[in-house]
């Protein structure tokens, strides 16, 4: 009889241990998830924001005066960060040139020839980097255009609209400075409790889960504090990201929740 009581006691203890094990597993999983989400958001968002407005060419490169700047050109040059028109700091749109640019050897007003081969700055096949309808940045030390790819061959890529002058004959910019790169437009936003990213206006991809709050605030050059509604997007030099993350499971009727914050300076404005 006593042995039975003791046995039950032992079983009860084992059950209690099992339960607490489960709870500690949930708590640990929640914490790990938060850490993972915080890190991935921190790394990926920082990378995009740092690159905002950056191209392979000079900061001073601009479209020809006779050319009417397109929306993409204005965004890239004047307002590389924006809030997609929401006005509440809940979204962030970043535009920049891709960090891989290709050397141009010859050009006409509507096509360019890339250096092909396996050497430095050369591409094996232009089809590896560009596709038809890709938005591309065509720039030199003096000029910058955002164009759309037409047909893509092994070394020749045609584009629209045509440039007013042939890129390689600009007297102010030597042909060696002419580059072709992909145009990058990234939108970061929250949908439900997921942190999403949409690249080039495509379908959003979920990056992190358990995001219960996400807010962006911006520092305008010369201002003394960050604001969610900057007066001039052109003068934004840094972005602050604040996030609240929470774990998936409830532990003792409470959800684990942590705050994450980070400041990122726009490299094309700061250095």
């Amino acid at each position: 009889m006593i042995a039975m009581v003791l046995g039950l006691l032992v079983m009860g203890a084992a059950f209690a241990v099992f339960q607490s094990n489960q709870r500690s597993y949930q708590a640990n999983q929640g914490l790990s998830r938060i850490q993972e989400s915080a890190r991935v958001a921190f790394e990926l968002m920082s990378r995009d924001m740092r690159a905002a407005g950056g191209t392979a060419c000079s900061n001073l490169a601009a479209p020809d005066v006779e050319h009417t700047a397109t929306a993409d050109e204005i965004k890239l040059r004047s307002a590389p960060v924006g809030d997609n028109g929401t006005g509440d700091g809940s979204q962030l749109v970043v535009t920049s040139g891709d960090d891989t640019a290709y050397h141009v050897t010859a050009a006409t007003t509507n096509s360019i020839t890339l250096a092909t081969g396996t050497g430095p700055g050369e591409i094996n096949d232009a089809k590896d980097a560009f596709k038809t309808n890709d938005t591309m940045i065509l720039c030199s030390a003096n000029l910058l255009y955002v164009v759309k790819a037409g047909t893509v061959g092994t070394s020749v890529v045609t584009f629209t609209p045509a440039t007013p002058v042939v890129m390689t004959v600009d007297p102010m910019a030597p042909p060696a400075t002419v580059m072709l790169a992909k145009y990058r437009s990234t939108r970061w936003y929250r949908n439900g409790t997921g942190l999403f990213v949409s690249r080039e206006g495509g379908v959003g991809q979920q990056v992190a889960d358990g995001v219960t709050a996400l807010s962006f605030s911006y520092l305008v050059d010369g201002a003394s504090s960050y604001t969610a509604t900057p007066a001039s997007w052109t003068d934004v030099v840094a972005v602050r990201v604040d996030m609240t993350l929470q774990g998936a499971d409830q532990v003792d009727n409470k959800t684990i929740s942590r705050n994450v914050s980070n400041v990122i300076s726009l490299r094309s404005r700061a250095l």
Partner: protein
Amino acid sequence: MSLVTIQHPRHIPSARLQQGMGMIEVLVSVLVLAVGLLGVAAMQSLALRGGQGSLETSQAVMQSNSIVEAMRINPTGNYNMGKTCSAASVTGTDLRANDQRAWVTALKSTVGADAATCGQITGCPGACVITVFWDDSRAGTDQGGTARSLVTNARI
């Protein structure tokens, strides 16, 4: 070829003696189990504290990077400040003071909300040393315990 040995049946103890053995066995097993369960509980709490400590370290790294970025955007501001444990003790209304205040506030909300969470910046702009202090005694004493700190060197 095998050798077969026939064992004699063992002597069977009396029923009275067997009852006593059963009791002692159960008692001993309860004791052993109790010690084992204590070990399991200790391991669980250690794992939890380790997880929390790792998150706090991650946050400290992110906060260090954060203030470096803020300093880079305002390179002429002198961000040096002694060990500051309260956002209210930072005075001023310029960008530098606002950044420092926001940084200490962020440290409190991300790394840990207790009094031991502090920030310090020295040697700017040539050789900035950014130190984040926090209480990590729960995760063990081997890494500094109560006075855990993370030092980042940067040039503005």
